[in-house]
């Protein structure tokens, strides 16, 4: 398949401005004749639905939660980046652009990233106007903090609840449009199929999670804002309900899936404590501003942290990366933690942990300052571990946190299926092989507030008003039938193993074979293990209850069935990409000091996979990454 990213011509810095003036518009009296479906109500989905409605489009907004306010963007803690340069520390749109490209290890699309940096400043303005209570100085001005992978302070924050506050801003904008009748809300509804009519995305099939009723909704365009697929790994920092079903069903209907193996493993999470564990909890990266990461120098040193003298400690991030120190990017910090644990120097009962120590910061700034900055995180740590991080260092370990991969989109955020737009974490476009901290919130809101509302008009202008199919068209009936069959099939297995058992088993395969470090051997082993597990699932899964009721086992079963297919694609991609870049660390390809060794000659492209059938090898399509502005370099944070 020939992939056209539709990147505008001209100098990088003027591409977006020029593009905005060149794309087609829909006149105001026609806007009200179009219907747009937005699936998902996180930062990207809620901001898009609200902004499209403000423009005059009729919007249908779907979410699986009981309220749009609960989408998992709500859990983002640390902050949101913007190139405001309020700190006068040398920040600029170019620097934010370059940091993001470099942070992504030169595997993202230059033009998209530059646009992201450009609109970052508008996001802060918009959110302030909505009443998002960002942290401020006594003078009333906005304040900033630092984050990993940057040497400027450009992160705006609302205590440790930035995601919550930004999401509430977008949610409130959305609810205003619901009140005005411009958005119809469909909570507790799960999209189970994408409907494609004559090659264009024209609707979805959903299951009402309360009654089990399956119904169709048609539209002139469909926007997927359904987040990432990190829960494929079972344990992650994602919400328990976050899932891949919407994007996976779109993939199976012909949308390409790009860079599926780019998995962000966040360095500062609370370590796993037992097999019963249902999720992992992140401790914000902002803690690395003041916390120092260390492990004992000696292998197997079982002394308590207070008993280990300064000389016997290895502040390994400061040692290895003197210029970024504890603020090295996430992929590098995670891998460094894995290395010291592999060497037997990990801490805690399991040996899978490192210390994040605030004693120096408390000495320097006083406890009250640390409390004001991170109090809620210290509280959260205490609730989970029953330890007081003001007295003893936190124990942290890397965990699955974000997926840089996602459905392939062009510069307009449209997938290869005309009419299907994909925004936020669900697409692949801006973070390359590693996302910098405080950039997910930025991208979600950039897509929803400032990119999609412009670019969707370019497609709608080609669609005659009123030409969308009726939801009883043949394609819809067929998609409903497929959905019903699938539900019945899951309920009819009556096997012996629970859905969770399958999910945990799959998660272990992925974490061990396709986690922080990958080899050809481990990936081939995973490819041998996944298909039999999938076959066993369809023969031996036990899904209690019925289809026509609220049935959480059934909901989970459908999602795990998708993970069992998606996992294989993740591994295919990791095996194909025979280089190391960002989060994707192939042990065969490392520099003498253990850093990623990219292979730009062969792999400077986006891998966009095309579905050919379950269990069949997908087709690899390549979008070459052409860098007009940036010179590709070995990434260094030393």
């Amino acid at each position, binding site marked *: 398949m020939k992939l056209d990213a539709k990147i505008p011509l001209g100098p990088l810095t003027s591409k977006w401005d020029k593009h905005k003036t060149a794309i087609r518009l829909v006149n105001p009296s026609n806007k009200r004749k179009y219907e747009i479906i937005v699936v998902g109500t996180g930062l990207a989905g809620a901001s898009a639905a609200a902004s499209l409605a403000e423009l005059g489009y009729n919007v249908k907004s779907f979410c699986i939660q009981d309220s749009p306010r609960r989408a998992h963007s709500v*859990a983002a803690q640390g902050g949101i980046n913007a190139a405001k340069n309020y700190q006068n520390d040398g920040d600029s749109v170019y620097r934010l652009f370059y940091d993001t490209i470099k942070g992504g290890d030169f595997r993202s699309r230059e033009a998209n990233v530059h646009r992201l940096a450009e609109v970052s400043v508008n996001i802060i*303005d*918009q959110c302030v*106007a909505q009443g998002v209570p960002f942290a401020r100085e*006594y003078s*009333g001005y906005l304040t900033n903090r630092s984050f990993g992978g940057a040497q400027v302070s450009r992160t705006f924050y609302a205590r440790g*609840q930035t995601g919550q506050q930004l999401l509430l801003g977008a949610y409130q904008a959305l609810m205003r449009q619901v009140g*005005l009748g411009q958005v119809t809300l469909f909570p507790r509804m799960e999209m189970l199929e994408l409907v494609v009519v004559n090659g264009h995305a024209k609707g979805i099939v959903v299951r009402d999670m309360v009654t089990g009723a399956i119904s169709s909704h048609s539209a002139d365009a469909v926007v997927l804002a359904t987040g990432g697929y990190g829960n494929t790994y079972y344990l992650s920092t994602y919400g328990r309900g976050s899932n891949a079903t919407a994007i996976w069903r779109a993939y199976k209907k012909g949308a390409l899936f790009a860079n599926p193996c780019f998995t962000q493993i966040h360095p500062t999470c609370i370590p796993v404590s037992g097999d019963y564990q249902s999720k992992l909890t992140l401790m914000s990266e902002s803690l690395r501003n003041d916390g120092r990461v260390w492990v004992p120098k000696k292998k197997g040193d079982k002394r308590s942290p207070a008993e280990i003298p300064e000389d016997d400690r290895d502040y390994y991030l400061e040692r290895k990366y003197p210029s970024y120190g504890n603020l090295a990017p996430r992929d590098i910090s995670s891998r460094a933690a894995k290395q010291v644990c592999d060497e037997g120097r990990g801490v805690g009962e399991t040996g899978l942990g490192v210390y994040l120590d605030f004693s120096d910061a408390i000495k320097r700034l006083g406890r009250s300052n640390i409390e004001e900055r991170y109090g809620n995180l210290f509280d959260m740590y205490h609730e989970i571990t029953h330890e007081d991080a003001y007295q003893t260092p936190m124990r942290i370990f890397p965990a699955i946190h974000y997926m840089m991969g996602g459905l392939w989109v062009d510069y307009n955020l449209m997938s290869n299926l005309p009419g299907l737009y994909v925004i936020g974490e669900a697409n692949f476009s801006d973070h390359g092989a590693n996302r910098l901290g405080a950039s997910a919130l930025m991208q979600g809101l950039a897509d929803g507030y400032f990119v999609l509302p412009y670019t969707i008009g370019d497609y709608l202008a080609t669609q005659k008003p009123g030409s969308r199919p009726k939801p009883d068209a043949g394609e819809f009936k067929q998609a409903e039938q497929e959905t019903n069959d699938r539900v019945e099939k899951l309920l009819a297995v009556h096997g012996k193993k629970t859905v969770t058992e399958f999910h945990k088993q799959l998660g272990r395969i992925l974490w061990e074979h396709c986690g922080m470090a990958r080899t050809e051997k481990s990936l081939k082993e995973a490819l041998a293990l996944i298909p039999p597990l999938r076959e066993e699932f369809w023969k031996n899964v036990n899904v209690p209850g019925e289809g026509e009721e609220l049935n959480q086992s059934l909901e989970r079963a459908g999602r795990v069935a998708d993970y069992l297919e998606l996992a294989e694609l993740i591994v295919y991609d990791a095996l194909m990409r025979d280089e190391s870049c960002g989060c994707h660390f192939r042990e065969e390809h490392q520099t003498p000091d253990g850093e990623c060794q990219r292979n730009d000659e062969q792999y400077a492209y986006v891998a966009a996979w095309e579905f050919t059938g379950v269990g069949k090898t997908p087709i690899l399509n390549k979008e070459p990454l052409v860098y007009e502005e940036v010179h590709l370099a070995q990434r260094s944070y030393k």
Partner: protein
Amino acid sequence: MNVKLRVWRQRDAGTPGRFETYEAKDINPNMSFLEMLDVVNEDLTRRGREPITFDHDCREGICGMCSCVINGEPHGPENKVATCQTYMRSFRDGETITVEPFRARAFPLIKDLIVNRSAFDRVIQAGGFVSVSTGSAPDGNAILVPKQNADLAMDAAACIGCGACVAACKNASAMLFVAAKVSHLNLLPQGRPEKEKRVLAMVQQMDEEGFGACTVTGSCEAVCPKGISLNFIAKMNRDYFGALLGVGGKKANTLTGA
């Protein structure tokens, strides 16, 4: 540790519910309460019985999806945490734990421990926003907010919309929830132009949803997982009476938005 659970089971709003008893054995005290329910549900599933249905998502106390009244208290025995942040070490070995849904007329039951809290969304829809469309905002630093106001607004904005305040109140009043949003926005200069209209509209919607009256007993504040202060109710009352006096005058004509 071992505990006995008395759990409210109800197929749907139209079918009578009842307590059922389950044994939870070999529970690790470091499990969260919801992880303990996961373990019980796995066991029920294996034995061919229907698992207990409950709402949950982030499991880190921020999404507000989890609910449950545990031993008579919304979100369980610990202060300032949600059910998902309640750990089994808060219970005694051998204890019988009673688990019920939030009960309020405005929160109709859906199934087992799940209730419908969409009334909260409709209260926000009535006025819990600043009417600013995308693209029209001035520079972020063009609007100065004194730190103490910003901090106070943030204290109110921390509400996760879980509904524990309603479940704890003998009148099932939603005053703390509504007051938190009214205060968050009314404290900020961005929210001031719509201040009167906002408080009137949100209070009216709150009443229409069937929430009860507030007698300021403070049970809401006591169970709030985010520690939202009762002071915000006082602030909302002040805004409300101010708005009542102002309505019909000049201010009412300057209102924008919904």
